[in-house]
């Protein structure tokens, strides 16, 4: 029997992939038998497939081929249309389409006027039609690669996609023969891509996902608590993104060209398009090497142009854009009512994240304990461009066995809307230095309930009776100036030898100038929730304390000596605050 028949014979069986559908680039991924996500290359070998469609004499071009048409056939090339899906003309920014087919108002939606057939008159293609064609091409690339018909997908979308947009996108995909199993947001897909690696340890952490794309940048602060993710804040920027960096290079090279040949290549559309494509390639090269060249044949007035630029120059020129990225990330952190000290991990996602300077700037913005996951800071980092599609593929493999109704129920707000702890819950322990107790958090703030965490605590020297004091804690930022060099020190030195005095003073001055505030997080002990006693512990024993917060915000605390018999178990009194959430249950 032929392969075709087998495909048709089993239409009910869903075979799902993960699709990341971006404004500039799309990528597709699947999960291999071992549960590892792999990104699929299309026929041309691109793993990052430009979201472009171009038409010449009825022939459809897709991906990189379509992108190269921007020079000669820009009128019939459609680009940067993802954000237009499901929107009306009044609410979109048509600027990105200037170099390609222009967005137009068409009935209640947006359309592009493109000559996609052999006929002379151009036809009007609505944006959903374009999306359908794009998804169809993506799906066929995946099917060709996998040798199996792909009929379902998990699609990533930005966090600010509206329900109408989701619906329109779902409709477009359906027309392309792809059933959208679930939409997942891009930042969460990126977190999932990292967390699904075999070596990953699931821990409680706050992750900043900076998705720096071609024409927009999105930052999300995600609380990851035991593998469950809650978005705490988001920030979007449509003015600071990859194209602005391209523009920096375009301007640089254009100026150079003007110096030599007295014509501005930016005045001519075709010259500009050529320069733009090359500048983008140069930008990518600069992410890898310390210098890159740009050469365009017949850039303007039939003059060839070739030049090189080194990375330092580029970083200097693009300084303003880079600062924009950093500010955006800071804004997102601020919006989440957090401090940079609270961030455990930064995931750089999206094509622009390859730029080493961004990672470098972030390492100086965040404390040293924060992991910056980007190729230039971490050898084992995943490719930033592939993160969303990988995450989508993992989610696809997880839910492809479910019924569509099951999936719908899983994404139901009644299931996803969950109370999150507003304060951390932990146990007071004794520290060596301070006489007061030190708070050791077990359950961090922003943990979705129900949740359970356990901790093993040491007992004081000789064992005996110990007190387990469970309380709420609040993180505070302690800002302190470093202690100014004590005045006694120079005096001591002065006694040792007077000729050293001059040097000593100089050093001090320098230090004073460099003096920076030391910021650290400390725990402030809040309400005491409960106390429990463990009697007669052995020397060197461990006490296990488990705090369990139920879905109704009821708290159960268990404490026992490891290896001992019995233990203490108690429940907190219910209160009004918790009753509100489960009142409807």
């Amino acid at each position, binding site marked *: 029997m032929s392969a075709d028949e087998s495909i048709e014979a089993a239409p009910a069986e869903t075979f799902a992939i993960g699709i990341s559908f971006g404004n500039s680039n799309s990528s597709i991924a699947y999960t291999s038998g071992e549960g590892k996500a792999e990104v699929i290359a299309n026929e041309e070998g691109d793993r990052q497939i430009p979201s472009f469609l171009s038409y010449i004499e009825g022939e459809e071009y897709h991906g990189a081929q379509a992108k190269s048409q921007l020079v000669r056939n820009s009128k019939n090339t459609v680009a940067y249309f993802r954000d237009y899906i499901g929107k009306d003309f009044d609410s979109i920014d048509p600027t990105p389409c200037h170099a390609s087919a222009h967005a137009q108002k068409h009935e209640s939606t947006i359309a592009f006027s493109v000559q996609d057939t052999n006929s002379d008159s151009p036809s009007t293609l609505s944006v959903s039609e374009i999306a359908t064609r794009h998804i169809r091409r993506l799906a066929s690339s995946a099917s060709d690669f996998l040798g199996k018909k792909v009929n379902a997908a998990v699609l990533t979308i930005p966090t600010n996609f509206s329900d109408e947009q989701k619906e329109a996108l779902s409709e477009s995909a359906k027309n392309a023969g792809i059933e959208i199993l679930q939409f997942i947001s891009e930042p969460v897909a990126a977190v999932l891509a990292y967390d699904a690696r075999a070596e990953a340890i699931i821990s409680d952490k706050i992750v900043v996902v900076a998705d720096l794309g071609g024409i927009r940048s999105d930052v999300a602060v995600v609380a990851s608590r035991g593998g469950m993710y809650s978005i705490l804040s988001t920030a979007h920027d449509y*003015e600071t993104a990859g194209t602005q960096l391209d523009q920096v290079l375009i301007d640089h090279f254009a100026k150079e060209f003007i110096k030599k040949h007295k014509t501005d290549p930016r005045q001519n559309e075709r010259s500009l398009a050529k320069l733009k494509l090359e500048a983008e390639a140069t930008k990518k090269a600069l992410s890898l090497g310390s210098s890159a060249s740009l050469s365009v044949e017949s850039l303007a007035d039939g003059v060839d142009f070739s030049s090189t630029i080194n990375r330092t120059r580029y970083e200097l020129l693009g300084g303003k854009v880079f600062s924009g990225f950093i500010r955006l990330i800071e804004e997102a952190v601020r919006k989440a009512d957090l401090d940079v000290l609270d961030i455990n991990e930064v995931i750089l996602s999206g094509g622009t994240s390859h730029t080493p300077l961004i990672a470098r700037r972030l390492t100086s913005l965040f404390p040293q304990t924060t992991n910056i996951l980007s190729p230039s800071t971490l050898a084992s980092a995943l490719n930033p461009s592939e993160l969303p599609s990988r995450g989508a593929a993992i989610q696809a493999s997880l839910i492809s066995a479910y019924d569509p109704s099951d999936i719908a129920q899983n994404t139901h707000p009644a299931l*996803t809307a969950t109370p999150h702890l507003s304060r951390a819950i932990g146990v007071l322990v004794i520290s060596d230095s301070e006489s007061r107790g030190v708070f050791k958090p077990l359950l961090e703030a922003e943990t979705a309930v129900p949740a359970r965490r356990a901790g093993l605590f040491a007992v004081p020297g000789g064992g005996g009776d110990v007190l387990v004091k469970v309380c709420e804690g609040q993180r505070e930022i302690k800002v302190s100036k470093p202690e100014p060099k004590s005045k006694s020190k120079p005096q001591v030195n002065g006694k040792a030898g007077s000729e050293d005095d001059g040097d000593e003073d100089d050093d001090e001055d320098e230090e004073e100038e460099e003096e920076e505030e030391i910021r650290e997080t400390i725990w402030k002990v809040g309400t*005491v929730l*409960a106390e429990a006693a463990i009697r007669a512990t052995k020397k060197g024993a461990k006490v296990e304390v488990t705090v369990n917060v139920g879905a109704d915000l009821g708290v159960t605390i268990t404490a026992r000596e490891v290896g001992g018999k019995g233990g203490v178990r108690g429940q907190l009194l219910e209160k009004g605050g918790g009753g509100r959430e489960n009142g409807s249950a």
Partner: protein
Amino acid sequence: MAAVQVQLPLPVLPEGWSAEKDFKAIGTLSPATQRNIEPVGPHFLAHARRKRHRRTFSEDDRIQAQENVKKVEDDDAGEISEPEDQMMLQRDAKDWKVFYKIFAKLSPRPNLILRLFFPTVLLLTNHSQGQDHYAVLGLSRHRYRATESQIKTAHRKKVLRHHPDKRAATGSSEDDSFFKCIQKATEVLLDPIKRRQFDSVDENADVEPPSKKEAQKKGWFKCWGPVFESEGRFSKDQPVPRLGGNESTKEDVERFYNFWYNFDSWRSFEYQDEDVPDDNENRDQKRHIEKKNNNARKKKKTEDTARLRSLVDECLAGDERIKKFKQQERAGKNKRRGEKEEAEKKLKEDKIKAQAEAERLKKEAEEAAKAEKAEGKKAKEAAKNAAKKNKRVLKSSVKDVNYLLPEGEAAAGPKRVDEVLNDVDLVMTKIDNEELASLAGKLGGAKGVDAVASVWAEETKRLVGAGKLKDGEVRTLI
């Protein structure tokens, strides 16, 4: 998840701690925040399974739950939308600095001329510097307070409305001059350095200091408060102390003026540079322009510092609180001085009084002593006189009865007289004044020789009985 390992030890159970089953519930949880968890990942699926098997839900639940979720996505429909002036829309991006240049040549204060003669121009242009970037983006209410995200949203909104493609779609001309204005405004406002330069000269954010009349009419604090609030935006130290009100303490007011007299401003005047050096000009020319600009900036900066100082001077001069504090201080001083004087005076008076009292007492005592002395003298005299008189009575009593000779006898001879009188004298020496008086009384009452003689005999007997006289010593009187 694996249990957390904590090396620090748990505290020792305090003495006397006890509870039922060794567990004491004390507090309750802080209220939780409702958030959406992302329906993604294996752990969520496990969570969903647990949760779903336990409860069923209705559409009502759905709405309820969705409403409670804390919003992380911004609402796009902010209040950042102001009516757009028709004139503003017709502006050209090119003339954003033109007006200033024209008027700068006419007057050192181009803004004044504009304000006097071309109020409409001022309306849509930002005073001296052409385009008002905040007005273009519809942020004229926020100005320097606008956050970066507000500017971004405002820009986005304006772009969505004024994009040349949109205009083309509605059929009007493909004129993108206002769009360029928008882009220019965003370029300036989103660049922290350029924005600071623009904010430095953004006179629309200035609040003019009130005249005395105005201040009187509207209330001094109401008028001056906003002036300093707007000036405070240039301060390197934030937050800036506020003017406060009538009830502010002296420390607050002093802190306020100290702050303003030591004001550290970031204000700079690059934005008002007349010429901007061009890449194409030669180096000398560039240096010349830069020098000129630097000088102009420095001059303006000095002027600004002086302006601010005079502003604070003016405010200080009109500040009723300062007068009040001075008065209070003076009153306090006077009061203290008065009290001191009072005390001194009192002390003095007390002293005088005490002295007078002492003198008076002394005098009284002296007088009393004197009176007593006089009295004593008198009494003594009287007693003497009485004794004399009584003695006379005694002597005369015997003389009257013819020296105790029985009646009818001839007058007593001198011998008898001597004997009787000697005896009388002897008796008189033996008795004291009182006995003398009583004896005189008795003798005065006695008539006749017998009576007198018996009185005497009686007296003599008494004296003999008392042992004062010897028996037989006074024979004549018995």
